[in-house]
């Protein structure tokens, strides 16, 4: 018997039991669709987090004052508060070959006003290096001026939201704003780049680091952002940064250094594992669908006993009967899987429409794996009914004994 006839025959038998076939298709397609959709959600979450971290900057190391140690030892007796990270500490980093850029960072909150309008926003004190490190784009004007970072000019770069709130559609470049009680000239406006890890980049102002230190009267830095020369030089940059701090802090490297890539790869690993897990859990429903196929096929075999006997009487060998029923299970599983893929496509489209910002996308392996598992379930669970049909005694089958 050729495959085309085999398929036609199996399809005919399935069409003959519409309700049963429909329910089986439903079960299988829900299984396949849930594998694809759940992995799409997992993969979406992974991409979301990866994008967020990538938007922080590339090859980034973040240095913060104080050691964040959880290992061993009693706490220091004299409750030694960590030494401040100073601007000079930050600038000293550039001595390392592994380090490309450094941006010191001071952060505070202050009212920013112009004319009669005033807003309380985050004030970032930094250097021009901040812009390339954090991928901040300038929409109008210039970033912070280059030059000696220890001398603070009275200039400011406004976030787009802040500019809008204070100036509306009016020209802001060259105008003066007041931060606390100091006057700053607006030299640039940030491009609208949305949010980064929960911080609204539009609702802030960036001023030279020395100006911010004076404004908030803090000699210490909040963070030092360090950009390594390449992905490969991140470990070297981290070591160099510690060396430099140790040399400058009387032999104590009392800083914490977080590498963005380490964080990123950890999240990446966790979320990949999560995606696999939810995919695997959803795949259980495929196995359940397979068991349903087995039951339905067993019922079908016992209802078609006479038909099986007849096929044997007209010359079908046991192997052929086995194949016929296996093809039927596989067809059922395959059609269910196909329907499931359509269902998943519809579900994905609906979710995308509902949450356009979420990068929902099933990983390529998900539909392949779902269909493979569905077909395997059809094959494995189709085997028992097919064997029962193949082993039937034709005389008994024909007489219904």
């Amino acid at each position: 018997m050729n495959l085309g006839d085999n398929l036609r025959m199996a399809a005919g038998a399935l069409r003959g039991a519409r309700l049963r076939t429909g329910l089986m298709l439903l079960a299988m397609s829900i299984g396949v669709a849930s594998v694809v959709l759940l992995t799409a959600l997992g993969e979406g979450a992974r991409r979301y987090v990866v994008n967020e971290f990538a938007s922080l900057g590339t090859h980034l190391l973040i240095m913060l004052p104080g050691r964040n140690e959880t290992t061993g030892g009693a706490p220091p007796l004299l409750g030694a508060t960590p030494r401040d990270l100073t601007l000079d500490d930050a600038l000293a980093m550039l001595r390392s070959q592994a380090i490309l850029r450094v941006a010191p960072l001071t952060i505070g909150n202050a009212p920013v006003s112009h004319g009669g309008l005033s807003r309380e926003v985050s004030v970032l004190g930094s250097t021009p290096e901040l812009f390339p490190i954090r991928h901040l784009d300038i929409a109008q004007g210039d970033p912070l001026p280059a030059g000696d970072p220890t001398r603070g000019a009275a200039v400011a770069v406004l976030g787009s939201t802040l500019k809008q709130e204070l100036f509306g559609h009016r020209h802001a470049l060259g105008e003066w704003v007041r931060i606390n009680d100091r006057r700053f000239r607006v030299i640039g406006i940030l491009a609208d780049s949305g949010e980064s890890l929960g911080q609204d980049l539009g609702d802030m102002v960036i001023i030279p680091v020395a100006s911010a230190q004076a404004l908030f009267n803090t000699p210490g830095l909040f963070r030092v952002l360090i950009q390594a020369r390449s992905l490969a030089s991140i470990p070297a940059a981290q070591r160099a940064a510690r060396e430099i701090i140790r040399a400058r802090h009387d032999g104590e490297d009392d800083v914490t250094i977080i590498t963005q890539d380490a964080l990123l790869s950890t999240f990446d690993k966790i979320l990949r594992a999560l995606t696999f897990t939810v995919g695997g859990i959803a795949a259980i429903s495929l196995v359940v669908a397979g068991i349903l196929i087995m039951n339905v096929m067993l019922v079908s075999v016992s209802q078609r006993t006479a038909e099986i006997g007849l096929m044997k009487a007209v010359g079908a060998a046991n192997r052929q009967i086995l194949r016929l029923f296996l093809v039927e299970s596989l067809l059922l599983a395959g059609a269910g899987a196909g329907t499931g893929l359509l269902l998943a496509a519809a579900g994905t489209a609906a979710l995308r429409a509902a949450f356009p910002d979420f990068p929902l996308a099933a990983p390529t392996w998900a539909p392949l794996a779902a269909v493979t598992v569905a077909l395997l379930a059809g094959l494995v669970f189709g085997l028992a009914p097919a064997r029962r049909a193949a082993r039937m005694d034709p005389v008994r089958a024909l007489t219904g004994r």
Partner: protein
Amino acid sequence: MIELQAVERRFQVGDEIVHGLRGVSLSIADGDYLSIMGPSGSGKSTLLNILGLLDRPDAGHYRLEGTETTTQDEEARAGLRQHHIGFVFQAFHLIPRLTAAQNIALPMTLAGVAPAQRERRVAEVLQAMGLSDRARHTPNQLSGGQRQRVAIGRAIVMQPQVLLADEPTGNLDQHSGGEVIKVLEQLNDQGITLIVVTHDPAIGARARRRIRMLDGAIESDQ
């Protein structure tokens, strides 16, 4: 040529052994026309099933066209059924979701005969059975006599040497039963070996060779 030699068939029913056939020996020449009669439970169907290779003797020999069949494996026996034997049953055993033409084509479909050749042969058979205008009808759209003619068509579509009919008129009225017997006898006239199990003495008497069975054995052979 069919040769049975001391064929035994026993069935286990609970603790008891039921003798379906006891030492049946029989040879049937090609092209012969036999009727098998006898009371219910005398072993007529069991004999026919063994002749048709649907069942295996517990002892004895069965040679079909010179081939010893009792030692053959299941696949070889299926092959012999496919090419040498046609079956007609009292209950027709048509597949309800297939049309008359598809039911007739079934043995060829299972045998993997190419569709074009299949169609030609099925048209021929439909014509011979007087069913050309019923090709696309499903069994429940056909009368009993028509259904049995479809079943006969299916039995001969592979052009077997032997045609076995187990009470082919048992589910039919007198008139359609007569028609069915006429069709079977026509096939015998064309050379097929015809073996008919029947309860009807009038039908049984038409055969050239008449066998009576009793209690699993051949009682008379005329």
